[in-house]
């Protein structure tokens, strides 16, 4: 799969020299990247490196300072309101916290895009919503309120809502963060299923190295607003650059390192003291 798409790279997302600011602070410092059709692109990087920011720009939720972005061939700066709405119907987004509407049932949440953008009758929409809920193993939960779901179920329901319009591109911000390994791994399988069965392009932001290597066709690594690496997981493993190897190892050791630094910060002690 990876090889066949790589040989005929048809870009669904093209970012060129993207510079973005929050207030006066420059967050993304001139990023260029492509996402090919039918691939799973994983975006990784340290906390605060700008992953969520990049994702928000790819979803056309923020205004950039300079650079261009083409999504499904459309330059998003040149789209009118109606055209942007039409483009957005081809995008699905599973937000980090789910972002389910708390006043609606799970089923109504999943149905909402259909309800707003299609002229289907309610029965058909209900069936379609139930089908998507089955895909994420939430069949039979459509009448519960989001507040009655567990964290993992909320994430899966958000997935169902994101894919209910059969989008061309699916964006996920940290799908497995805060989930137990079994559910996290099931979500990874789901992402692969969506790519293979429904032909979606998936852009995933994640911290989990293991999950990234499992699902990614290609990986982008962001570091303080700049791109450090773009390539396949194999290329990443084999990359001779010390910086990337450090980063890979550091990401893997993140937990222990962080705990120490955290303790030091809490106690206000100098980091000179090393117990091990």
């Amino acid at each position, binding site marked *: 799969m990876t090889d066949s798409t790589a040989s005929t790279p048809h870009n669904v997302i093209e970012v060129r020299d993207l510079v973005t600011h929050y207030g006066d602070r420059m967050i993304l410092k001139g990023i260029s990247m492509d996402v090919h059709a039918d691939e799973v692109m994983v975006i990784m990087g340290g906390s605060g490196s700008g992953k969520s920011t990049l994702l*928000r720009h790819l*979803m056309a*939720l923020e205004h950039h300072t300079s650079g261009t972005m083409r999504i499904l061939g459309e330059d998003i700066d040149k789209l009118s*309101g*109606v055209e*942007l*709405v*039409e483009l*957005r*119907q081809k*995008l699905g*987004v599973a*937000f*980090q*916290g789910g*972002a*389910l*509407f*708390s*006043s609606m049932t799970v089923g109504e949440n999943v149905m*909402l*895009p259909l309800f*707003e*953008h299609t002229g289907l009758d309610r029965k058909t929409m209900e069936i379609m919503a139930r089908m998507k809920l089955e895909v994420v193993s939430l069949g039979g939960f459509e009448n519960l309120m989001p507040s009655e779901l567990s964290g993992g179920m909320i994430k899966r329901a958000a997935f169902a809502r994101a894919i209910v319009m059969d989008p061309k591109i699916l964006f996920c911000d940290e799908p497995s963060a805060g989930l137990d390994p079994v559910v996290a791994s099931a979500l990874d399988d789901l992402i692969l299923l969506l790519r293979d069965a429904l032909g979606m392009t998936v852009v995933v932001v994640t911290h989990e190295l293991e999950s990234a290597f499992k699902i990614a066709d290609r990986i982008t690594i962001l570091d303080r607003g700049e791109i450090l690496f773009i390539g396949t997981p194999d290329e990443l493993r084999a990359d001779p650059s010390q910086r990337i190897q450090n980063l890979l190892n550091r990401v893997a050791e993140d937990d222990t390192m962080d705990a120490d630094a955290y303790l030091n910060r809490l106690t206000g002690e100098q980091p000179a003291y090393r117990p091990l």
Partner: protein
Amino acid sequence: MTPTDARNPIVVTTEKVGRAAVAGVEEIGLGAMMVVESFYWLIFGRREKQAVRLGAIAEQCMAIGIQAVPIIALLAATIGMMLAIQGIHTLRIFGAESRVTVGISFSVVREFAPLITGIVIAGRSGSALAARIGTMKINQEVDALYVMGINPVRFLVVPAMVAMVIMVPALTLFSDFVGLFFAGVYVNLDLGISLAAYMDQTIELLSVDDLMHGLGKSVIFSILIAVIGVVNGASVQGGAEGVGKATTRAVVQSISAIIVTDMLFAFVVTR
């Protein structure tokens, strides 16, 4: 104290006042934009393939209007009786108690019904609107609407605003009746004027103008409540605490706006 220190407080204060003024103007501008945008979606929504849903408006009407009926009835009845008590007490000085109907009918219809309805709705629904939009914002639900291609103003603001504009005048009319009726009951008990005679008198005294004066005000109140709720909700920052602050601000601002507008309206229209 050095000269710079002496000048600093003035500079600092001036700057603070300036900033607050700019922020205030900005907020008013945002509110005005929200009204314009709401009208836009209401009229052209269909053309943009984003029609405003009648179901959503009906739902908001239920929440804003129908559920507020008991409390508004209670307060309108209380105000009506209070006006009767005070009116009779005051007029007794001149021995003119039987003329109390004049004061009651004008006060209820022109002032107290719109005012009490506006204040109750600001407290119940203006705050709820701010809290709902604020919570949705911090939970990324507003972002989710955008990425689904659903305009949040069309989806969240317009139904609430339309429902306000329908329900606040309707409830004002309702409190007109309740207030007048309970004032009449008190007049009947205290002065022995029959309820039928009281009502005849009231109907004779009140013109359509008086009724429209009160209802016209209530339309303005309804827009103020909706806009202030939405603007405060939309500017929420920083989690649940931010939502709480915005909610309180929305209530205080809309009640103040209602009272000030009430005075201005009376001043402009009555003279």
